[in-house]
């Protein structure tokens, strides 16, 4: 059976609507899974309608490609650790980018063979290739930084922005030249330079800004799909690409707002380095007038508390402490202690990272609250327990106009009666800014690996009886 192009267009429309419902499902955790199934249905329909259309006539390569992709994709999805989600996402973004480049070049070859090239089409092809190529190499660099294959520290040199601007202009110029003349050399050089821009655009951005990078590349992958839609005259690709592009752009905006920085500042600013590991944490702490406390002290306060608020950060993910936290939560709840989790929008390496890790540990989502929902509750909390977070609770963001993080909205952990900080060392957060909360009267630091410390607390709680 072969679908007419009108039937195919209707199928694409239904598919686009299903994708919108899929995203709409993410409004609430209860409806989200159903939404994901809508998405799958939309994709299946789009693929089926394409395969049954008049344009697709040979199936050998297609079946091989889909089969291999299905196996690899399924294995990746089933095996990936939740802490490694940012890496998986970066890898998947790179695939979309590269696929868009390949589709554009393939389209060029097919159209050239059929003698159907024209300046508008070649301009659209250039756009598709440039966006796709930047998405590809940018995501590869992001993956490398997240996986620790390359340093997370920003790579900066003088004249960097000027160089980027020059390469950018040259790339655009070559794209225009290709569109006007169909010159193959321009096409090749343009593609090459676009790959280079992806690298030079991402290397100056520091590891702490990973949530923004991930969101930005998410956006680029959408625009790449939309550009492909323009070259193929396919409205489904344009609709989906625009929605995904906006999704990433909105996430980038939310992340930037949560750091009180502009997107320009993140892209060109590059703060945050890997330097400054602490030597003797306890000694340094004493020197700076910081109190350190034993696990038992924290447990003593928590078990008699009415309310404990836990603030997880990337350190919790690194230490894989979420499962131990869940156990501690249950022990505390058994003693009638109310336990809540407070999430800062930029905690972790990608938007919503902490929520997924806590969900993985079976912590119910109704106990996990966003910054705006929980900030008013710190004043009535007996204990705030900071697990691997730092900058997001630093009062300097409110009180010290000279601080680089001044103006950033924070979780007001300092308002709790007692604050316990689980830390490996005295090293400052990613911003490199000293945390004023450490020196507050009601704050104590508990040194050690977050997971070991929490497990120590669990043991103490089980031992019970003060």
């Amino acid at each position, binding site marked *: 059976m072969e679908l007419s192009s009108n039937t195919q267009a209707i199928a694409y429309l239904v598919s686009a609507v299903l994708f919108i419902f899929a995203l709409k499902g993410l409004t609430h955790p209860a409806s989200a899974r159903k939404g994901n199934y809508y998405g799958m249905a939309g994709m299946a329909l789009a693929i089926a309608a394409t395969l049954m259309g008049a344009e697709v006539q040979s199936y050998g390569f297609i079946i091989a490609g889909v089969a291999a992709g299905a196996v690899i994709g399924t294995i990746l999805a089933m095996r990936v650790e939740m802490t490694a989600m940012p890496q998986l996402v970066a890898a998947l973004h790179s695939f979309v980018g590269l696929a868009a480049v390949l589709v554009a070049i393939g389209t060029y070859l097919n159209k050239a063979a059929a003698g159907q090239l024209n300046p508008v089409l070649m301009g659209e092809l250039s756009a598709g290739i440039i966006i796709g190529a930047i998405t590809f190499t940018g995501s590869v660099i992001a993956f490398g930084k997240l996986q620790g294959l390359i340093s997370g520290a920003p790579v900066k040199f003088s004249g960097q922005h000027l160089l980027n601007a020059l390469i950018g202009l040259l790339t655009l110029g070559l794209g225009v030249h290709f569109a006007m003349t169909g010159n193959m050399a321009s096409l090749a050089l343009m593609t090459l330079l676009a790959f280079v821009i992806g690298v030079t655009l991402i290397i100056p951005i520091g590891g702490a800004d990973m949530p923004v990078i991930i969101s930005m590349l998410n956006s680029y992958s959408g625009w790449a799909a939309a550009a492909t839609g323009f070259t193929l005259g396919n409205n489904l690709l344009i609709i989906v690409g625009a929605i995904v592009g906006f999704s990433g752009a909105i996430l980038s905006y939310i992340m930037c707002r949560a750091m009180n920085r502009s997107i320009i500042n993140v892209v060109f600013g590059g703060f945050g380095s890997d330097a400054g590991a602490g030597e003797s944490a306890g000694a340094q702490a004493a020197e700076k007038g910081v109190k350190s406390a034993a696990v038992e002290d924290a447990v003593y306060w928590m078990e008699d508390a009415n309310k404990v608020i836990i603030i997880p950060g990337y350190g919790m993910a690194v230490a894989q402490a979420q499962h131990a936290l869940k156990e501690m939560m249950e022990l505390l709840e058994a003693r009638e202690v109310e336990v809540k989790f407070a999430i800062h929008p930029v905690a972790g390496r990608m938007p*919503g990272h902490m929520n997924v890790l806590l*969900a993985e540990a079976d912590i119910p989502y109704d106990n996990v609250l966003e910054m705006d929902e929980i900030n008013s509750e710190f004043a009535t909390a007996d204990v705030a327990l900071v697990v691997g977070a730092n900058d997001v609770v630093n009062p300097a963001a409110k009180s010290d106009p000279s601080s680089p993080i001044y103006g950033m909205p924070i979780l007001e952990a300092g308002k709790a009666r007692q604050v316990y900080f689980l830390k490996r060392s005295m090293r400052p957060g990613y911003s490199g800014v000293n945390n004023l909360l450490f020196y507050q009267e009601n704050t104590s630091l508990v040194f050690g690996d977050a997971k070991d410390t929490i497990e120590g607390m669990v043991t103490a709680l089980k031992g019970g009886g003060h």
Partner: protein
Amino acid sequence: MPDTLVALYVFVLSCFIGYWVIWGVTPALHTPLVALTNAISGIVIVGALLVTGLEGAGSSAEIMGFFAVLLASINVFGGFLVTNRMLAMFKKDKKK
């Protein structure tokens, strides 16, 4: 109206749909959102299929198409499955 202009209309209006739908997503589900948008941007597979399956496509176009199909399928399968896996973890508090 020429096709390219129709495409532009569709594009601009879709941007607005994207804007409103995405603001509705709860921040708790931002990671699944990124994974899901990853999966649906695998829609470039449609372009890959059209390039690969064209009757009389040259062998270099076919090879480009094959790799594009492969990469986009990894996105589609990987993206939807990992989203599903994550969403299955989000549970309500049974005690309440």
